[in-house]
């Protein structure tokens, strides 16, 4: 018997209740009955092309593919009946007709679904004696992906991923019949920001990673779960090392964050961790102006000496620090040194995060929506950076929300964004006119598609945009309805730094400070004017990242004693007086807080080079020297302090951060009506802690891991869901409580000369970490300037010309690209080959001229 919510079926003699519409293959797996498969992947729609999952269903004349058969009431299924076993053996014998037995030299060997399933379900021998199909070996179809077509079993996973999930259908099945092969279009590379996912989901070794090729065997690897250190989406990943070198990162699933996917920057951008350029010991500028190695005791004592006796101190933190670092930095600055001049906004200097709270969009200076609220939203308003470049996996979630869940997406931007291709409404705002465009939304054609639930996505996108005005306008838009906000700060640590009060007008737990301090710009200005004694920089490369390179340079030369905690001798670091080496994300236990304020844990895998330390330990040591012993010795100690002092974090259970959650729910079902609140089944099975620092072996070796571990290459299929930080309750601050300066970049009216300058991040650039990552650093593109065609005509510029872009007395020669961008606006990318945009972004406007 069953009701509407449940059907009862029998699988291999065991009765099981399941939600109608779920796929037989998933229900069987949750029961512990593994049905072999190649083409089925829980993150994509089933296609039933590999025919490996055929099972016997009573009353059906032929075997049925479990991956595309929805469960039905009274269904009696047998996966071990003679016919089904015959089919499985037969399919494997067919697949092995052409598949080479080159497992000993194949990267996939040891973690290969074909290998494992052949052992488990194969016939044991082949009757086929003819020559196998061969192709040209090792086709490099992009800078990152290598294709060996003879290994392919034509499961379509890469094709479906590229088409369904990424929307970059660059890899396809070409030709037909026995000649069918996976291929890209002739000389056009597999140039997708998400191409690495196809390597991870390939059930054979047909698609392999160029940086990882022949680097390690899976059983040589040590692994630990972690969180990507780049953007604020915070995708969970594995760090995998061989001989104490980080050699591979892969996506871990979290249905709340990234489903099964990560971008290529996260996957291939790890080499910086093992770079020879890492700082390994504290350095002090000596008498002859050269750096010399010093001991920690010496270096810290020198820094502490400078900090004593009422020194005027400014503290700036970069966006890649952990939540623990953030808490320690805030505590050191405010409680020990006694300064409120502390900020964590560098590239995003002046971003009005606190206004999100003040405008009433959210109870915190952060998101009130979760990423998955996008999928259930009726309306999504996007007012952030181009997500495909800056927050790639969020782009996938937005795409899925629109294409799979029928959300209406309204994009307001002066220039074309990657979202425009599938957005419901694209509002091309005038240069500098975004706030007005938001205010006019309700009288625009987009108004018909504005309804609840609504998610407003905002993130600082560009120095040329008046973000304070934009947030205020979004507040007015959201106030009329029950809108939630997804706030998108740029980096992996940005939200954690805000939560911990590394901000001039916010204290930890999003409490408004009674007397706000200086923000990044004002701190740098004070340093430049000689009004600071000490400038403490935690992972903040102000010369490269702060939107006014000139001011940053003057700040470092303004006479303040500059102390830098860094991974690398960056340009800022090399102009400091003391350099303190920091541990990188793969070397530390910690947490990142992502853009939906989800706290996820990083486990240590490697030793930090030399004597590099976690930034929070540096803060502890400095505090002790300054007479305040915090008594922290471990990650747990830091969190005990956070939990008892930060009102939004009192409930965070750090043990739960490393506990395994349920297996991820499949993203697609059979098309039956489904309950949107469904979150997938919880697998009964061995519980306990996530295995730390070692791999859990291939499925059939250990006999206890779920076979979905193939999708994770050896990791167990459980997610670590993380914990979303609490929101402060109580009265929200009044607008007068905030005096965050908005930077100098607000456009100053129509009459001004020149073009409104927009700058934005491209996925691959010459940032500090990525430029040390050997796989990606050569992908950074040539710098360019985007310009409206009409404007170009007036300036007698055409596509490909070199234009001289001038602002504030500096100039750059950039290649002209004609683009869909508002008249009177130009766009330049940050940090492309040999060009730092922040030499120009100090001015709200630039002028353009032909290069004569």
């Amino acid at each position, binding site marked *: 018997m069953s009701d509407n919510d449940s059907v009862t079926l029998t699988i291999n003699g065991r009765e099981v209740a399941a939600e109608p519409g779920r796929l037989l293959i998933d229900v069987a797996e949750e029961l512990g009955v593994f049905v072999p498969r190649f083409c089925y992947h829980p993150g994509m729609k089933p296609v039933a092309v590999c025919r490996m999952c055929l099972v016997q269903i009573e009353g059906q004349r032929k075997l049925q593919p479990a991956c595309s058969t929805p469960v039905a009431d009274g269904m009696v299924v047998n996966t071990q009946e003679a016919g089904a076993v015959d089919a499985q053996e037969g399919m494997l014998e067919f697949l092995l007709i052409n598949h080479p037995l080159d497992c000993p030299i194949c990267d996939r060997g040891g973690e290969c679904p074909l290998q494992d399933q052949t052992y488990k379900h194969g016939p044991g021998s082949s009757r086929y004696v003819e020559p196998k199909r061969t192709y040209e070996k090792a086709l490099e179809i992009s800078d990152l992906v290598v294709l060996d077509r003879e290994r392919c079993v034509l499961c379509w996973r890469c094709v479906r991923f590229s088409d369904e999930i990424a929307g*970059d*259908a*660059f*890899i*396809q*099945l*070409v*030709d*037909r019949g026995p000649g069918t092969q996976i*291929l*890209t*279009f*002739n000389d*056009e590379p597999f140039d997708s920001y998400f191409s690495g996912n196809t390597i991870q989901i390939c059930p054979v070794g047909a698609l392999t990673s160029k940086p990882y090729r022949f680097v390690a065997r899976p059983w040589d690897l040590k692994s630990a779960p972690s969180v990507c250190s780049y953007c604020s989406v915070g995708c969970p990943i594995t760090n995998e090392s061989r001989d104490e070198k980080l050699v591979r990162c892969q996506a871990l699933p979290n249905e709340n964050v990234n489903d099964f996917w990560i971008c290529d920057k996260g996957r291939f951008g790890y080499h910086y961790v093992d770079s020879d350029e890492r700082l390994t010991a504290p350095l002090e500028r000596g008498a002859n102006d050269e750096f010399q190695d010093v001991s920690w005791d010496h270096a810290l004592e020198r820094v502490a000496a400078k900090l004593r006796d009422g020194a005027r101190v400014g503290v700036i933190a970069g966006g890649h620090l952990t939540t623990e670092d953030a808490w320690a930095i805030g505590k050191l600055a405010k409680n020990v040194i006694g300064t409120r001049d502390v900020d964590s906004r560098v590239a995003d200097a002046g971003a009005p995060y606190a206004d999100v709270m003040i405008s009433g969009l959210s109870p915190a200076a952060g998101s009130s929506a979760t990423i998955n609220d996008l999928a259930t939203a009726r309306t999504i308003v996007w007012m952030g950076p181009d997500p495909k470049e800056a927050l790639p996996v969020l782009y996938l979630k937005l795409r899925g929300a629109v294409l799979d869940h029928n959300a209406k997406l309204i994009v307001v931007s002066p220039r074309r964004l990657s979202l425009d291709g599938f957005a419901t409404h694209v509002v091309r705002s005038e240069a500098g006119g975004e706030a007005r465009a938001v205010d006019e939304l309700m009288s625009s054609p987009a108004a018909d598609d504005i309804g609840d639930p609504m998610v407003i996505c905002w993130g600082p996108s560009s120095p040329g945009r008046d973000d304070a005005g934009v947030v205020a306008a979004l507040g007015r838009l959201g106030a009329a309805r029950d809108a939630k906000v997804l706030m998108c700060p740029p980096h992996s640590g940005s939200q954690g730094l805000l939560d911990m009060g590394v901000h001039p007008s916010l204290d930890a737990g999003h409490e408004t400070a009674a007397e706000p301090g200086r923000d990044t710009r004002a701190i740098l200005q004070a340093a430049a004017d000689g009004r600071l004694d000490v400038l403490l920089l935690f992972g903040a490369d102000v010369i490269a990242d702060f939107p006014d390179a000139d001011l940053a340079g003057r700040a470092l030369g303004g006479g303040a004693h500059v102390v830098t905690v860094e991974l690398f001798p960056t340009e800022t670091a090399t102009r400091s007086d003391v350099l303190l080496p920091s541990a990188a994300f793969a070397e530390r236990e910690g947490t990142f807080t992502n853009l939906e304020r989800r706290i996820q844990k990083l486990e240590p895998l490697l030793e930090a080079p030399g004597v590099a330390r976690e930034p929070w330990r540096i803060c502890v040591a400095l505090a002790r020297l300054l007479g305040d012993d915090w008594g922290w010795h471990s990650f747990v100690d830091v969190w005990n302090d956070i939990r008892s002092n930060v009102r939004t974090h009192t409930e965070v259970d750090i043990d739960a951060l490393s506990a395994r959650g349920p297996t991820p729910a499949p993203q697609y079902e059979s098309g039956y009506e489904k309950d949107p609140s469904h979150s997938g089944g919880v697998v009964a099975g061995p519980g306990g802690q996530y295995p730390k620092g070692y791999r859990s072996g291939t499925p059939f070796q250990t006999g206890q891991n779920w076979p979905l571990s193939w999708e994770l290459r050896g990791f167990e299929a459980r997610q670590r869901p993380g914990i979303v930080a609490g929101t402060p309750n109580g009265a929200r601050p009044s607008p007068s409580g905030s005096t965050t300066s908005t930077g100098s970049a607000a456009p100053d009216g129509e009459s001004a000369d020149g073009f409104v300058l927009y700058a934005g991040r491209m996925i691959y650039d010459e940032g500090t970490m990525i430029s040390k990552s050997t796989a990606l650093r050569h992908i950074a593109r040539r710098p360019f300037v985007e310009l409206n065609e009409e404007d170009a005509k007036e300036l007698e510029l055409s596509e490909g010309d070199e234009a001289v872009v001038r602002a504030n007395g500096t100039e750059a020669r950039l290649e002209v690209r004609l683009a869909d961008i508002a008249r009177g606006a130009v766009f330049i990318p940050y940090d492309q080959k040999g060009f730092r945009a922040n030499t120009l972004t100090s001015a709200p406007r630039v002028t353009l001229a032909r290069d004569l």
Partner: protein
Amino acid sequence: MADISSNGTTKVLVGGHYQVAKSIVSKYPNSRSAVLPLLFLVQGIEGHVTDQGMRDVAGILGLTPAEVLASGSFYTMLKKKPTGEYLISVCRNVSCAHRGAHKVINALSERLDIDPGAVTADGRFELETAECLATCDGAPSMQINYEDFYNLTPESAVDLVDRIERGETVAGERGETVRTQREVSYETAVAGARLPGTAGDIEARTVGGESPPEDMKAGDRPKLRDDEGTHGG
């Protein structure tokens, strides 16, 4: 729907050809359905499906070139390599083989001085062996650019080649004139598009080339006539 209001960067489908492509696309409720006719159009212009042609089709339809390649490479009538002006396809399946198809193939091979699968040096003829052409009653049979010829002998097959080479008009079994590869491809592309100025005989030769109803939208299914859709009442 892909933007087809400007021809921007196309290189093969330009000018009048671009206009033809536009009319073909406009006949489909879902623009990507036009991928095969457009590839035939490219073949009609270029003689085979060129890389640039596939890029043009992708640009017009808003697809990636890889997607166009995936569709195009599946069909053997779309040629990825330069092909002969006249493609001679001789059936070699059971009925034809019994009635001497191999002698026809050998005679043609000798006359043209090429092996099956190759193109003559002057590019005029291409010889291939074909699987069943569904004309067993006329075995041994062959097609020249998809027009049927029945009950061949080595001599009659060679004679057809001679006549085409002399520039004579040759008609197939159903009375249709044998046209060049390009002409046939072009006709295939525009069949059903009802282009203004289309030669009447193209329309007459079109089988099943009906345009969809004006009000048809993406995802619509054709309405069944009263007598359709049920089996055995």
